[in-house]
């Protein structure tokens, strides 16, 4: 008579979980050993009873109420998970708020440019942009510093393309002229006496 099979191996054999080799050895032993065969049958009987008990509902349990409680608990759990989960970042330029902020910044920049940058600078930038787009032409850079412009209103001092003011009295000049040596002249005539005054501004 060989040694009896251990309890754990008998339990595994009863559920079909013993390895293939051990299972064959166990089957050979069980065909010859009454005691071990009785243990296996006892295990199978207990298993069947447990299944029968598990298949039936406990007494006094309302299934509908239990299902509703379980559903509610699941929802509460999902909501709690939302609260503690890391927040997902939205795309940078989705929605109207970022667009409005960018538009506001653009308006501020354009207004600032318009108020501060001399017209000549803007025109010069425009010329440079045209040259870059055309791909030909030359760009020469003018000397910085005040210069003069003869206008119908009088002598206008300009610096970096922007006006620094016009020399003007109570009346319009009757004539203005430029000298390429670096000055501008304006002729004024007194309305009452006819006295002529010639003012000049020099930039060289």
């Amino acid at each position, binding site marked *: 008579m060989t040694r009896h099979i251990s309890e754990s191996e008998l339990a595994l054999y009863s559920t079909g979980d013993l390895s293939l080799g051990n299972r064959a050895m166990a089957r050979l032993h069980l065909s010859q050993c009454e005691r071990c065969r009785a243990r296996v049958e006892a295990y199978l009987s207990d298993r069947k009873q447990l299944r029968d008990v598990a298949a039936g509902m406990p007494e006094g349990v309302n299934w509908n109420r239990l299902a509703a409680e379980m559903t509610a608990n699941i929802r509460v759990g999902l909501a709690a998970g939302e609260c503690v989960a890391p927040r997902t970042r939205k795309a940078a330029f989705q929605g109207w708020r970022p667009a409005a902020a960018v538009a506001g910044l653009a308006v501020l920049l354009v*207004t*600032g*440019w318009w108020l*501060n940058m001399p017209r000549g600078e803007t025109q*010069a930038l425009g*010329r*440079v942009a*045209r*040259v870059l787009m055309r791909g030909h*032409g*030359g*760009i*020469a*850079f*003018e*000397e910085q*510093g*005040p*210069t*003069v*412009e*003869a*206008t*119908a209103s*009088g*002598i*206008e*001092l300009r*610096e970096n393309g922007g006006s*620094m*003011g*016009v*020399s003007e*009295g109570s009346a319009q000049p*009757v*004539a*203005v*002229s*430029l*000298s*390429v*040596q*670096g000055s*501008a002249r304006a*002729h004024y*005539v*007194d*309305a*009452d006496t*006819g*006295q*002529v*005054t*010639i*003012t*000049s*501004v*020099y*930039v*060289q």
Partner: protein
Amino acid sequence: MLLAGALTSGAQTLNRKIDLPKDSPVTLVSDAWGDSGATIRGGAYVLDLHVALTLRNSGQRRIRGITLTVLTQEMTPGGKGSISVPSLDIPPGETFPVRGDLHLLRPVGAGAPQVEVALDGVLFDDLSFYGPDKLHSQRSMTVWELEARRDRRYFKTLIEQAGREGLQNEMLASLARQADRPQYGVQLVRGRSTNADPEHDVQFAFLHFPEGPVDPVDGLARIAGNEARAPRVEVRNRSDRAIRYLEIGWIVRDQQGREFLAASVPADLSLPAHGSSQVLQDAALRFQQPTSIQAMTGFVSSVEYADGSYWIPSRSALSDPTLRRVAAPSPEEQRLVQIYRKKGLDAVIEELKKF
């Protein structure tokens, strides 16, 4: 920040000084500065000057013209101006007003805003001159005085030949020309200009005055879009006298056929009798958009001989249709026309009788 920068400015107290030499033929009677003031703009003070002086002829000769220097900073471009009053006839002991409105600059780093008015020169009825002449005002005032004498002579001859009606017609024609004379904005650009347009040369056409001592024979300027630069004119002296200075008037015609006097091209030179020389200026003119320069015309507007005497075009030379249309009348003609407009023909005739 940009907006704040644009709006930042502040009025400043203006220090004023009037400096006349001790031996000056004019003395200061009173001065007023109206609402003159200074404001800071960027790195400079912008001085808005409105000066009204009353001066007295404290010399012994009649004064024909005066030029005052107005200085806010000697070395700064835009820091120097002048006020000239031509066509005067101030006898000894008499007072006369000098008024001027100027916009000048002074660097903030040069100290508090200040302005100094000084005498540059006085021209007398015998064409003699007093003053430091730092602005070459002797030359300008002498040319104005010669133009005044020429024009008064012309108007007097007109009265003799065509009577009051002839003078009146001439006054009305001058008024009409002044009203119709085109005046467009022209900016002086120092050094090389900023222009991306392709450059090309445009030749000058010239108005020739038969009695003129100088003939412009050839010339051109570089044109790029609405800019003209580096005018170069070759001139020939037809006279028997050496010449040390001349001025050339520069007329421009745009793509719409409009003609206007753009600038004068002055030149200090050494032009021997019957010799040739070249007038060359490294400067550029920028015309208001959308002017596109199509053609240019030049004419000699004044000449100074080496001996200090002058030549100016005659009235008949100035009757060229282009010149009559674009050239400004002399200061004396401007004065007489204003007297006609304000007081009538008799006042003009009385004025002419004074000389």
